[in-house]
């Protein structure tokens, strides 16, 4: 007997206005464990706004949004790096581990830093990190509590080719253990093969496309 995969997030008729401006409407999707939904669309189409609605940071103006994952099992990566520049990389991670109530000692935290290629900079102040290093520290923070649902807003920002490959590998590993991923990307050629489904926002109301990733062609999209 097989069990249906656990539903992690669902949106039905979701809509959002900024003042009189319609950002998106009629957004519908379901995300189950292990799935990856790629959010596509031009700048200003409302991709980041949709992610914030899903995270509960801002309310939706229409429709319903059900996220079956609590904050303790949610990993959110936004446009900011969420680091304390005056603290070292290790101290940053130690703080976030305590905030999440994770019993990780310094050796375990150093391993997490090594996994994002920051072993040599673990004791350096995070303020001295480059943008890419800060983003890798941010990734280590997001994956610290092995989240069940990952909301990633352009996670590849500032990363070089090797770090981007590391990011892809980490997301793949998270999906293998059952995490669901909603991922905003502007590098569709690179990231599309990782996705199960695509939701393309048009910036003009209803989504331009929602369906399997295999059937999505950015050129055919009117957005």
């Amino acid at each position, binding site marked *: 007997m097989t069990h249906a995969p656990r539903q992690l997030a669902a949106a039905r008729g979701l809509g959002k206005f900024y003042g009189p401006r319609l950002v998106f409407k009629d957004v519908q999707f379901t995300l189950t464990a292990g799935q990856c939904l790629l959010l596509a669309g031009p700048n200003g189409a409302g991709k980041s706004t949709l992610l*914030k609605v899903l*995270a*509960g*940071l*801002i309310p939706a103006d229409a429709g319903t949004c059900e996220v079956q994952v*609590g*904050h*303790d099992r*949610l990993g*959110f990566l*936004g*446009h*900011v*790096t*969420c*680091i*304390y*520049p*005056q*603290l070292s990389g290790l*101290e940053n991670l130690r*703080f*976030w581990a*305590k*905030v*999440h*109530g994770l019993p990780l000692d310094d050796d375990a935290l150093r391993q997490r830093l090594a996994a994002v290629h920051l072993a040599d900079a673990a004791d350096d102040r995070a303020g001295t990190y480059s943008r890419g290093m*800060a983003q890798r520290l941010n990734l280590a*923070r997001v994956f610290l509590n092995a989240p069940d649902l990952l909301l990633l807003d352009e996670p590849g920002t500032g990363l070089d080719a090797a770090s981007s490959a590391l990011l892809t590998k980490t997301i793949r590993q998270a999906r293998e253990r059952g995490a669901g991923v909603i991922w905003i990307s502007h590098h569709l050629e690179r990231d599309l093969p990782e996705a199960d489904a695509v939701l393309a926002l048009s910036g003009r109301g209803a989504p331009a496309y929602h369906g399997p990733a295999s059937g999505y062609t950015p050129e055919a999209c009117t957005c």
Partner: protein
Amino acid sequence: MLRAALIIAHKDLRLLVGRSSGLVQAVLLGLVLLFLFSLSQAPGQRLPAQSAAAVFWMASLFCEILVVNALFFVEESQGARLALTLSPMPLQAIWLGKALASLVLLLLAQCLFLPASVAFLGQSFSGDVWPALAMVLLADWGLVALGALLGALSQGQAARESLLSVVLFPLLLPLLLAAVRGMTQALGGPPEPLENWFMTAGAFDLMFTAAALFLFPYVYGGDA
């Protein structure tokens, strides 16, 4: 919630004391204020105890404002607020952590302001010190409780948030009046019963704490 608040407070104290970011300016501002008031007196002249107490609390208030601004700025500079608000800890724990860190820093600053008041304002602790110390603790909690709420407000960019700060600021006046009365006695001012002032300070402490616990999630939660 207390455990989470202590984690926040510990991190903030590390940032502000260990790395001296923000604390030095806050203490210097208070000390400069005390020194400037000393210049208003003729050589050998002694400021009345009540005036000296008022100057001491003004220095404490301005110091507190800079401290809470620094405490909340550390969450804004690289967007750590976003991760904090999405963490499993209750949002009130952030307020409590900031208030506790702020209390420690304010008490540290006041440890410098007290001898500076003696040196610059020609005061001596010839009165009853213990009630004054109790009043300092009561008044400090009220300052940091409301200060941590105002600090969260001050990080917003919308005009309504600035307006709220202006509206809430006068709420501190009764607490400061009670604090000045307590300190006046310690500095050898005319004795008077302080029971009513203690009750006033206690009542405002409770009110500020309750208001902060209720309002902080609305002020600090949501889109960072």
